[in-house]
């Protein structure tokens, strides 16, 4: 009986943390900003999200961003991990820097896609969810 109650409580608390962090991360959509610095010849892709942990358990969040060319090869990638205490939040800013050649190849007509990875583990690293979103060029809002 005790293990059943522990199991149910663990499941409930884990799901609450997972749902809370995911919904706060994706609320309001994902805003990508793409810039090109003429002076340095470097293009950049920026994503900023603020996951919050409204749950009662610590949550480890990993956010990764990749820019893939038409062949699915990563042109640039960046990732960041943060531990969110209950009630805590963290603003994560990922910036991908792309050379002039790659920027022109990708931005001006070439096929490309953005791959966003969100990994989340809670309940002392025992329960987790990972979400990989692949957004082809032209679909990005």
């Amino acid at each position, binding site marked *: 009986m005790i293990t059943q109650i522990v199991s149910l409580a663990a499941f409930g608390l884990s799901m609450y943390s997972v749902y809370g962090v995911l919904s706060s991360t994706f609320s309001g959509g994902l805003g990508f900003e793409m810039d090109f610095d003429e002076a340095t010849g470097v293009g950049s892709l920026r994503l900023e999200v603020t996951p919050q942990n409204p749950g009662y358990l610590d949550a480890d969040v990993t956010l990764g961003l990749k820019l893939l060319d038409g062949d699915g090869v990563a042109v640039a990638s960046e990732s960041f991990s943060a531990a969110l205490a209950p009630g805590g939040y963290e603003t994560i800013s990922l910036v991908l820097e792309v050379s002039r050649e790659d920027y022109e190849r990708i931005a001006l007509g070439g096929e490309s896609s953005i791959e966003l990875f969100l990994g989340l583990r809670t309940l002392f690293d025992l329960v987790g969810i990972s*979400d990989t979103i692949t957004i082809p060029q032209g679909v990005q809002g």
Partner: protein
Amino acid sequence: MSNRTGALVSAAITLLLFTVIPLMAPQYLPPSYIETLARTGIDVPSFVNQLAIMGVAVAALTLVKGFVAPASPIYLLAALASSGLTFAFTVVTLSFGKLEELGNLGLTSMTVEVQGSVNAITLDFRFLVQLTALTVALRMVEAVFAYLEARKEAKVPEPPSAPARAADI
């Protein structure tokens, strides 16, 4: 409350929770939810039917346990099967009824395609499945011990009546 009444009440609650509510729930969900679930590869009607069938089986086993003597092998088999079904119920629920994912024991993957974007989700609930396996194993051991104890009590002979005194004869 007698064993039989308890079994009837318990079976009724099991049927309500694991058969009636799952069968009725899809009617109350917005159609958009059902469509979203279907896009992830979750077959909602099949999932609901799996839960409902297991609910009926668990309720039937609960009734059997209430109406059979604890020293009977049928009682032991019903108790073991009931525990096994609890484990199956957990695995099926955490796999969202996806038969191809059942073998992963709590590691469930699904892919959703929305407006050209591909969303690949992996849920890792293996710990919860392992915890349930531990619970079920303990319950099975407990059922075996309870059965052995009941058998032992059933075999204890009646104490002999006091010998008649010579004076009474």
